[in-house]
């Protein structure tokens, strides 16, 4: 909101420099978004008297004027009488008038902020024009360009235009958001009061601003009006009065100047008067053309404004020219035949005040802020009135404002009050006083203010304070709608005292250590272990396009669906993280082409996934914590560096991650788990992009629960995502890591030499490696000589060319004893024994 400092000064003294004031405003009222010094714009512009005005010989529409600038401007061509020649095309230029003159070398104000246009002396059809006489548009007052700005004050020629119309002003733009609960601060009066309070000065509202003002009596009752408020709970106050014989014309230039400075475009004296009152007090007003309203009333008895909810199928043409279909939730002002305004938002065009208007009805009403907000949002109409009405104006100021507006109307339009002021009021509650102990405030601010300090601070901004006991009893002034509890007064006192003066101390607490969040710690450690293994962490959107899901073979019906996304890329909550990773592979492979020799990468993301079916204790969708990983290498790189399936590369990373966290898991072919997974929404969607033949389910060692998947992707997924063939990934539940062991397993180091011996076994091709390995491991554990320690490593898996039904697995035993040197024979015997067992139980043949 724009605030004019000159306007403020009409109500309070400002002792601070502009810079100090702006600093104090931002720390004691709210953020200052901008400051503009209007004076610069109007410097050098003068009010002059047109002494002579004669038709230009060579141009029909131009006049040649001689102007009197009081001799103010130096270095300019003057005639013998000291007058300056200006050529002017305005129809209303005439001798003896006062006009605004932009001298040569001055900038035209309307161009000031854009491309400054600097005037000079130049010839117009053979006559020299020194600068120009200016219209409201050129002076950035309004859009009006039909004639010269009307100088309606009696001033000496040569007076500074800026001085006369208070244009040497500082315009401060305050952020609106902080006034969400301060409707009074949407008015100059409210801001002036705050500035007074910030300076520790007593503020006095003007005489006319009273809850129970002197209500003027009508001069006559020629234009009787009635109000029929059918929704009193939504419209707690509706004040209306009629005024006859208004003379529609531009407002006095001073009024225009006030409005223009705060960014309101002057229109005509009636509309300007309602806007002026709104800017001054924060209370929007509306003027109807009385005769148009009357013509729309069916009943002849009187002109009645009906306040009601909109009917079904009702339409309304607004002042903006837009026609809207009303909704039942809208509040409308109507006659007995039709709606004539959307309450609190915008008037209707059928009763618009125009240049032919003779009589008007003035409205000063209070509407339910929530209803106004809803209607405004539903119709997408955001007016200055809406901004104010949605903050909840006090209904207690309507009479004062109406009374003041009646006087203003008379002053600037000649119209006189011709009905009594109709006051339909349903707000009888008194302002509630709040009682508190000064300690309450001091404890919350960390201050040691006395009762008297607090009393003064609040008094300055017109709170009524009773400080006769130990406690303070405070009654907010009638325009404040935001003071309900003691804490509201803590804010008021703290702010006006100045938060910057508060003592700055850290809270004290016991030295017990704060417990770290295990889940966040897990994320950190996974991040560390994977990035140290050359993988890159990425993050991607929680929301995905339906196409991504279907490309990854997932079912969007399982998703939480976003109802109001601006972009179709954000339709659904993702069911797992893998699709997001699949989505970036192609672009990365492509952009990396030719950049480095190896076009390969490992990416991972730690995040959450959701579905619409699984609910937690709070009956909200479960937030599954999950990590997804993907490895991809383009064909050339894959061929050069790796042999065999990409699966093993992804598994390598999984094993690394698991081992880094001192955990163990079991991998089983995915095919053996499909039944178990089928009914699990989360897992079935997680595995959807993976190829069942070339993927493993990751099982918990403790309870065989499926925790995730590692594998290659379906051919169709590879095609649609344009993945290189050498691509594989995994996705796992991070709860797996909740039991992570912080202590690595240690085996005491043997002092005696180790013996290495290989054993090669030929087994059925279909036999799982793990079956054989675990069998051998168990046998070794059971049969190893006492006090020995061994390890078993894979050396090779080999399939002979003409033996496709079998594979040969070579394992290496490394064994040593703690108390002696083992002999080779002993180890050979052990392996023989194990090999025999393997033959008996698994049909393995020693090679």
């Amino acid at each position, binding site marked *: 909101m724009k605030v004019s400092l000159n306007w403020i000064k009409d109500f309070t003294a400002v002792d601070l420099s502009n810079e100090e004031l702006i600093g104090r405003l931002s720390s004691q009222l709210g953020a200052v978004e901008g400051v503009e010094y209007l004076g610069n714009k109007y410097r050098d512009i003068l009010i002059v008297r047109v002494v002579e005005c004669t038709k230009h010989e060579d141009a029909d529409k131009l006049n040649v004027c001689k102007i009197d600038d009081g001799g103010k401007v130096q270095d300019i061509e003057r005639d013998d009488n000291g007058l300056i020649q200006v050529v002017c095309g305005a129809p209303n230029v005439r001798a003896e008038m006062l006009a605004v003159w932009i001298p040569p070398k001055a900038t035209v104000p309307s161009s000031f902020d854009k491309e400054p246009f600097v005037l000079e002396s130049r010839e117009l059809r053979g006559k020299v024009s020194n600068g120009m006489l200016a219209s409201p548009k050129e002076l950035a007052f309004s859009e009006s360009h039909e004639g010269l700005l009307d100088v309606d004050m009696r001033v000496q020629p040569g007076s500074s235009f800026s001085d006369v119309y208070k244009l040497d002003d500082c315009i401060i733009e305050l952020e609106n958001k902080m006034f969400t609960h301060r409707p009074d601060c949407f008015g100059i009066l409210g801001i002036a009061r705050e500035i007074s309070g910030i300076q520790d000065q007593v503020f006095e509202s003007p005489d006319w601003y009273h809850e129970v003002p002197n209500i003027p009596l009508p001069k006559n009752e020629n234009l009787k009006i009635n109000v029929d408020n059918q929704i009193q709970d939504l419209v707690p106050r509706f004040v209306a009065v009629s005024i006859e014989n208004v003379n529609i014309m531009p407002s006095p230039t001073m009024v225009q100047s006030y409005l223009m400075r705060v960014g309101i475009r002057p229109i005509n004296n009636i509309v300007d008067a309602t806007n002026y009152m709104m800017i001054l007090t924060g209370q929007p007003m509306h003027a109807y053309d009385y005769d148009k309203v009357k013509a729309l009333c069916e009943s002849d008895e009187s002109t009645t404004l009906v306040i009601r909810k909109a009917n079904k199928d009702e339409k309304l043409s607004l002042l903006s020219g837009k026609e809207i279909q009303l909704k039942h939730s809208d509040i409308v002002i109507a006659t007995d035949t039709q709606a004539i305004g959307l309450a609190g938002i915008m008037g209707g065009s059928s009763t618009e005040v125009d240049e032919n208007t003779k009589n008007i009805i003035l409205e000063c009403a209070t509407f339910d802020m929530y209803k106004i907000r809803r209607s405004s949002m539903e119709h997408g109409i955001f007016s200055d009135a809406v901004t104010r009405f949605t903050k909840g104006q006090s209904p207690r100021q309507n009479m004062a404002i109406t009374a003041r507006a009646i006087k203003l109307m008379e002053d600037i339009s000649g119209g006189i009050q011709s009905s009594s002021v109709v006051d339909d009021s349903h707000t009888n509650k008194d302002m509630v006083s709040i009682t508190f102990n000064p300690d309450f405030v001091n404890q919350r601010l960390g201050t040691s203010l006395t009762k008297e300090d607090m009393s003064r601070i609040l008094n300055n901004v017109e709170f009524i304070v009773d400080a006769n006991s130990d406690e303070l009893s405070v009654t907010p002034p009638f325009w404040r709608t935001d003071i309900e509890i003691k804490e509201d007064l803590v804010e008021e006192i703290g702010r006006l005292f100045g938060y910057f003066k508060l003592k700055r101390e850290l809270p004290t607490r016991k030295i017990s250590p704060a417990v770290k969040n295990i889940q966040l710690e897990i994320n950190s450690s996974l991040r560390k272990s994977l990035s140290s293994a050359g993988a*890159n962490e990425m993050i991607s959107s929680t929301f995905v396009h339906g196409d991504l899901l279907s490309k990854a073979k997932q079912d969007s019906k399982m998703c939480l669906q976003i109802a109001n996304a601006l972009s179709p890329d954000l339709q659904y909550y993702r069911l797992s993280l893998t699709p997001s990773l699949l989505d970036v592979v192609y672009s990365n492979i492509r952009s990396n082409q030719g950049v480095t020799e190896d076009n390969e990468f490992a990416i991972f993301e730690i995040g959450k996934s959701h579905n619409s079916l699984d609910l937690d204790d709070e009956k909200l969708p479960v937030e599954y914590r999950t990590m997804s990983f993907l490895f991809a290498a383009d064909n050339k790189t894959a061929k050069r560096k790796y042999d065999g399936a990409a699966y093993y590369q992804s598994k390598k990373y999984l094993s690394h991650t698991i081992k880094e966290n001192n955990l163990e898991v079991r991998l089983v072919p995915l095919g053996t788990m499909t039944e178990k997974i089928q009914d699990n929404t989360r897992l079935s969607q997680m595995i959807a992009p993976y190829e069942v033949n070339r993927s493993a389910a990751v099982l918990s060692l403790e309870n065989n629960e499926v925790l995730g998947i590692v594998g290659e992707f379906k051919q169709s997924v590879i095609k649609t995502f344009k993945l290189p063939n050498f691509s594989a990934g995994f996705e796992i539940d991070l709860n797996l890591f909740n039991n992570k062991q912080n202590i690595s397993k240690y085996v005491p180091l043997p002092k005696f030499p180790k013996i290495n011996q290989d054993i090669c076994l030929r087994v059925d091709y279909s036999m799982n490696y793990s079956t054989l390995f675990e069998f051998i491991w168990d046998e070794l554990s059971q049969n190893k000589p006492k006090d020995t320690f061994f390890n078993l490593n894979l050396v090779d898996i080999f399939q002979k060319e003409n033996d496709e039904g079998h594979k040969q697995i070579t394992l290496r035993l490394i064994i040593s004893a703690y108390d002696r040197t083992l002999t080779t024979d002993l180890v050979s015997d052990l392996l023989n024994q194990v090999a025999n067992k393997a033959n008996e139980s698994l049909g393995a043949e020693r090679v």
Partner: protein
Amino acid sequence: MDYKYSQIQEVASKLKDPELLKTKGRAILRSPELNGLFSHLKEMDANNRAEFGKEINNLKTELTEILDNMENESIQLDPIDVTAPIDKNVASDKHPRLLNSSHGSKHPLMTELDNILDIFYRMGFTALESRQVDDDFHMFESLNFPEDHPARDDYDTFMTTTGLIAPAHTSTMQNRVLVDGKKLLDEGSPIASVLPGRVFRNEDVDARHGHTFYQVEGIYVDKGINTGHLISTFKTFLEEYYSQEMELILQPFYFPFTEPSFEFVLSCPFCQKNGCNVCSYSGWIELGGCGMIHPNVLKMAGIDSDIYTGFAWGFGVDRLVMMKHGIEDIRHFMAGKLEFLRQFS
């Protein structure tokens, strides 16, 4: 896909039958039904001819895609032994192996969150990650936002079709932390928690605005906590974070869930208030909001607001990271581009 011309739509419905596609395979692309469509061209009004022809081609493309997909669907590579650490017949120099650690990187936002958490841990705060889907109660109601309150306008929230909300601020966790923390207060300990997490705003995306960003919320409740504590705590954090002394200004603001409410503005750590690119030559940076927790919010969590007071704050992490590294476009964070990611350690 729907077709404008009924003749084409008819053929499309017929040919797109999955059973038919399975039995006929690619022969469908040469079927009399499809080829027959071209005969309509002659009868066509000249104006529509091109469009009609285009639609036939579209149908052909659609059918080809469906067939391609079906073929891909049916391709299954040979099973592998997923329990083995390596494939068969692989020479030892081509065994799977981890990439060189110098390629690796952590996401800069995550690194920063870790840094921030580390400071708060040291200051005695616990941490809890914020939810990514929540209900109206936690997002608004428990935070003293009445229904239809205009303050809700400041949050362009994503809603699900079932009426849930993608939280627009980490404050959505406040009520939970306060309810859980009541027992701490009873034991004579403060509630001191930070709540990092992803939040969402349904607004147009550009270089400075994403629909998703990260926030860190903080809450401190105890007996005798005042506004001076709030300022001091946050200043202490910022000075530790930037390893330098800083000025902190509180600007009065309005949030329904704090009273009084502020925006905090800090002196620019990159130019010591001299004005630079980062602070748009103002010397100051607006970082987030804070305030004393509104008594209604405490009451809603069953905490007696006459005995206990507290403060809360929230600030965005993305902006901190962008300022720190000079990142020019917020969209880089979620783009998954290695060129971006690999620039960070």
